[in-house]
């Protein structure tokens, strides 16, 4: 079984069919095409998106619906094509796709979730794309918490 050196969890085994493949990479990281998802009970609801190519590269994300329970996808037909999905119908989160919002901490120490361009994963093929939403209702810096004021996890 192949192994992956990770940023936060030392070395993990993974199976080939669990690898998330991004044909276009991620904006800013266009050379990164393969990731695994790490979801540990201790860290829930956080999900770690670990690069297979670069062990030091690991994004942290939240399921979009846990940030906004009413989130509605508006994926472009180009991105639906990359995902191998029907270009005339928006996929359903949970049935067709998983949808993760990547978290960042800004210079202002505000912790934010990117709802403008979630990572959308085809649940059947594990092909994924960071899909910039066609509707402008969502922010690339949706505020979650202030990193300075949140108490440490026990």
């Amino acid at each position, binding site marked *: 079984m192949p192994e992956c050196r990770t940023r936060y969890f030392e070395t993990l085994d993974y199976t080939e*069919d669990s690898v998330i493949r991004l044909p276009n990479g991620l*904006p800013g990281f266009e050379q990164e095409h393969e990731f695994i*998802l790490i*979801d540990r009970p201790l860290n829930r609801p956080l999900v770690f998106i670990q690069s297979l190519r670069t062990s030091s590269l690991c*994004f942290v994300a939240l399921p979009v619906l846990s940030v906004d329970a009413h989130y509605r996808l508006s994926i472009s037909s180009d991105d639906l094509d990359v995902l191998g999905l029907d270009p005339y119908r928006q996929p359903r989160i949970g049935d067709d796709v998983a949808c993760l919002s990547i*978290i960042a901490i800004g210079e202002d120490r505000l912790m934010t979730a990117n709802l403008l361009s979630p990572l959308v994963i085809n*649940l059947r093929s594990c092909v994924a794309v*960071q899909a910039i939403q066609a509707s402008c209702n969502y922010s*690339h810096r949706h505020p979650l918490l202030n990193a300075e004021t*949140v108490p440490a996890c026990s």
Partner: protein
Amino acid sequence: MLVVRRRAGESVLIGDDIEVVVLEAGQNRVKLGIMAPREVLVFRKELELTREQNRAAAVTDALSLSRLAGALNALGRRDSDTGPVEQLADATTCDASAGDPDGR
């Protein structure tokens, strides 16, 4: 900021060699055509915002994240609908636990 009113079919010139044409103008959106030299990068601003956010996300530190996880749990978001993500991630990590009881 320079503000120019244009109708469909009209255009704006930027410098010597960039032309922005309004192809369609609807109620909520406009369709633009951009003619520019090959070396000029043209992309939607959302792509640049996404790129910046990804770069910031890549250097996010673990301590802040553990605080975030703690705070989210305290807020009761733990039971959110993460089903399919768990399925995918379980497939990734189910064989990764250090003390595998079956000794595989």
